[in-house]
């Protein structure tokens, strides 16, 4: 194994990078909507980039200038609706309270935020109301979020220049994508999909909007019949018990097209709302990513920075690519893995056991 490369960030630069990281994380749905993101002065950044590029060969300069010019165009593009994001209502207050409680039992709060604080309910409402914005938020445009800077092509180190956040730019779905999403949200009948397409796949697709309306009502029906109270008014231990009941076979109806029940939909969308790009409406301040030790999108800096001066790549000491994480190397330079929690360990063991089961089912499938 190779040693850590000698490149070090100065304390000033590190502080700057961290400050910028914080400042560039979008705020959540109900925190001070900022309206339209103001484009940075593209020409200024273009010139700054060109100054660096002037030290490059002419051919390299042309390449770099082309890339920057393209970016400058992107920054002038129209920003889709308001950024971070005024709420487009789908849920009633009661429904939202029920959903918030559900999300918080899926990813519960502890010393790290729970799904509600991370914005999963807002993410789900935003998904269900996508066509109130013409479907523009179904696919974030990119290419960069502005959370990390460009690297300096001469030095092969992080520069002080950050790209505009292109994750808030509009991108309309293609005709087929729009058809797909209208069926997903409103049902295949409302989207106009022909029966000859739907019947062989198991019949009409029920839209997610209807599934959430009905599913949240079902949650309270089961909750009241078991405990006498609606789900949102229960303590967390009782909520866990009701959720377990909702998740048992036969309690909620199965979605013949998607498989699973309403509980599966909420778990999936809660995971999405906690760990997808914040511009989708959840993962507030990217705290979902930070909680699990990921940076999320890493462009344009990435994890290897090519230096024209040295004609080689440099790595980031804080996020090394070819060596172990710094916090798993002890004082003597030896590998010192951090132990998993018993829960994480159990999941690894379960994956191992699960895969090994197949050998019993089909001889030779796993050898």
């Amino acid at each position, binding site marked *: 194994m190779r040693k850590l490369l000698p490149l070090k960030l100065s304390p000033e630069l590190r502080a700057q990078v961290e400050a910028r990281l914080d400042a560039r994380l979008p705020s959540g749905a109900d925190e001070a909507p900022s309206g339209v993101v103001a484009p940075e002065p593209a020409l200024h950044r273009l010139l700054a980039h060109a100054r660096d590029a002037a030290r490059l060969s002419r051919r390299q300069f042309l390449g770099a200038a082309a890339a920057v010019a393209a970016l400058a165009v992107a920054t002038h593009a129209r920003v889709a609706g308001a950024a971070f994001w005024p709420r487009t209502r789908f849920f009633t207050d009661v429904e939202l309270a029920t959903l918030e409680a559900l999300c918080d039992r899926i990813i519960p709060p502890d010393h790290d935020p729970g799904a509600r604080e991370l914005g999963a309910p807002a993410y789900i409402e935003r998904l269900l109301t996508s066509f109130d914005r013409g479907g523009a938020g179904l696919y974030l445009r990119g290419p960069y979020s502005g959370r990390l800077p460009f690297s300096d092509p001469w030095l092969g180190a992080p520069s002080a220049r950050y790209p505009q956040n292109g994750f808030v730019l509009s991108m309309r779905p293609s*005709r087929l994508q729009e058809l797909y999403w209208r069926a997903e949200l409103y049902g295949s009948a409302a989207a106009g999909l022909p029966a000859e397409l739907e019947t062989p796949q198991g019949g009409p697709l029920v839209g997610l909007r209807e599934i959430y309306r009905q599913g949240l009502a079902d949650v309270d029906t089961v909750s009241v019949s078991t405990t006498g109270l609606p789900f949102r008014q229960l303590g967390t231990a009782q909520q866990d018990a009701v959720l377990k009941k909702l998740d048992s076979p036969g309690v909620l109806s199965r979605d013949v097209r998607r498989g699973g029940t309403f509980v599966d939909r909420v778990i999936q969308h809660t995971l999405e709302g906690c760990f997808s790009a914040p511009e989708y409406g959840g993962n507030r301040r990217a705290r979902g990513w930070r909680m699990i030790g990921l940076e999320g999108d890493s462009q344009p800096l990435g994890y290897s920075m090519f230096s024209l001066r040295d004609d080689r790549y440099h790595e980031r000491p804080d996020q090394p690519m070819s060596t172990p994480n710094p916090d798993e190397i002890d004082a003597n330079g030896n590998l010192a893995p951090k132990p998993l929690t018993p829960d994480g360990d159990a999941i690894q063991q379960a994956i191992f056991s699960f895969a090994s089961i197949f050998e019993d089912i089909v001889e030779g499938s796993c050898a």
Partner: protein
Amino acid sequence: MAASSAEDGMLGNRSLDRFDVCVIGSGAGGGAAAYALTAGGKNVLVLECGHNPWPGLDGPNLPLPRHSNDELKYALREYIEPLSRLEPRTFRQRASDTAAIHDDVNLLPRAVGGSFQHADCKVPRYNAFDFELKSRLEALLGATPGLAIPGFGSDAASANFADWPFSYADLEPHYAEMELLHGVQGADDNPFASWRSSPFPMPPGVAMYFALVIAEGARQASLQGRLLTPHTYPGAHNTKFYDERPPCVDCGWCSGFGCPNNSKGSPAVTTLRKALLSGRCQLRYNAKAVRLLNDGGHVSAVEYVDGAGVNRIATADAFVLAASPIESARLCLMSPTPSGETLGDSSGQVGRNLMFHLQTNVSGFLPQRVHGQRGRAVTHGLTDFRGLEPGGDVPRIFDVNGAPGVRLGGIVEFSASQGLPITDDGGVAAFQLPGKSGARFGTKLKNALRDGALTQHLVSVLMQAEDAPQLTNRVDLDPSVRDVFGLPVARVTYASHPFELGVRNFYIPYQRQILELAGATRIFTVPCDTLLGDPPTSHHEMGTLRMGPDAATSVTNPEGRFHDVDNLYACDGSVFPTASGYNPTCTVIAVALKIAHGMAPSPLPVA
């Protein structure tokens, strides 16, 4: 429904209205064909059924694409994948089974630039041996007492092996051309690679940590008395400023995602862009080809559905199929001749000999965090399990239970989880693990995610093994299921052959040994798709329009033209007679370049 794009659905020279060649598909093969044909002076129309992630691709400056580091966009919302609910496929293992709709019958992305843009762009070449595999193995059988190979000798009727109609030496200039055009990084550190006329255009980039750990394990492992020889993996990602594109920054969103900064040498930013800048190319996207209008021996036009849902006709003097093997064959099957036959099918082989590779994946967990989210997915691998002697020209004879045996597997990739919390840790814990062993919700789920139990610890040794061509492995039209265009969907019939299943069982213990020596625990073999009755998910497709000299046993001739149709060509993996055991894209492109240069000669680029 009205077209939802404000653009006109077109790239390139909009004023062209008469075309020498129409290329159907803009991916690895179609991009290469469009490049070589325009370089040879032809006016080319490209039809692409997907949308365009590169607005302005035909402009003077290469634009940044609408690609981004975004798990939701690609892994869950299928930004460039086909939407299988609208365009399903059906699958069965045997002709006697009833085919059922399946989510992913080796679906390949649909967008300008094709599937290569969402691959991590591993581009090893095939071996010299591969182009004459059939005759070489037959000779070996005759010269080696006691040697038996499934699909050969007395068992030959169970498979349909064939030599390629040209040699590695014939194709080598186009391998070199491919590597120059797409910008390939690599090193001469693989003892099993066949000879090359020129060095890789760029040196290898930074190694990924887990790959170095696995390579260290591999160096201590041996295969019947010979130590294994891990090597860097050739890939089309810039490691310098190259051809108007920046160096790769190893962002980690490579396999399964589009490249945000164009450092990935995918067709859109290489061959296709050069074709568009030539002034002799017009590309229409959201344009789904549905039928070739023909008189049985000649194609006069292609009918397609445009982005607004309107059926249109495009004419050209010649037509090139490059829609991927399943879709290229499907287009022939949807294009009857005036007498009601399948176009180009006098051999009866259209859609047959479909090959996918048999992937064998052995995985385990390392105690330290391996941060597979940093880097281009695969930086190292080994080729010992292709089963050849060093030099890549002679099969190695193994001792198999005291008898001589040939075990032609394939290249091995060292890989790891890419650190995707929603699909990997979250998805596996909440949905894939059965019953009480999983973590549907609550603190268990949260802890598994915080630990990165899977995403930060899972490592794999994955072999891309050759699968035997079989007449019974095929694509045809499903008799009852139709897609959103009202067209019959592709029905795939595919089962594994003992040729590859024996190889799989032979190498699994060695794959396990590598991981054990690398320090992994809880090592398991990922269940084999085909043995469980599922379609393979290799996303490698080959065969269906096999090329060969004999019109009775092949669909296309050695120049890539249909034997039966005087102006119809194939320029994708469909023409491959055999699959070899390497990621096929490099060879798809080299073959497409060879065919297209044959249609319109022009000088090859020089380094």
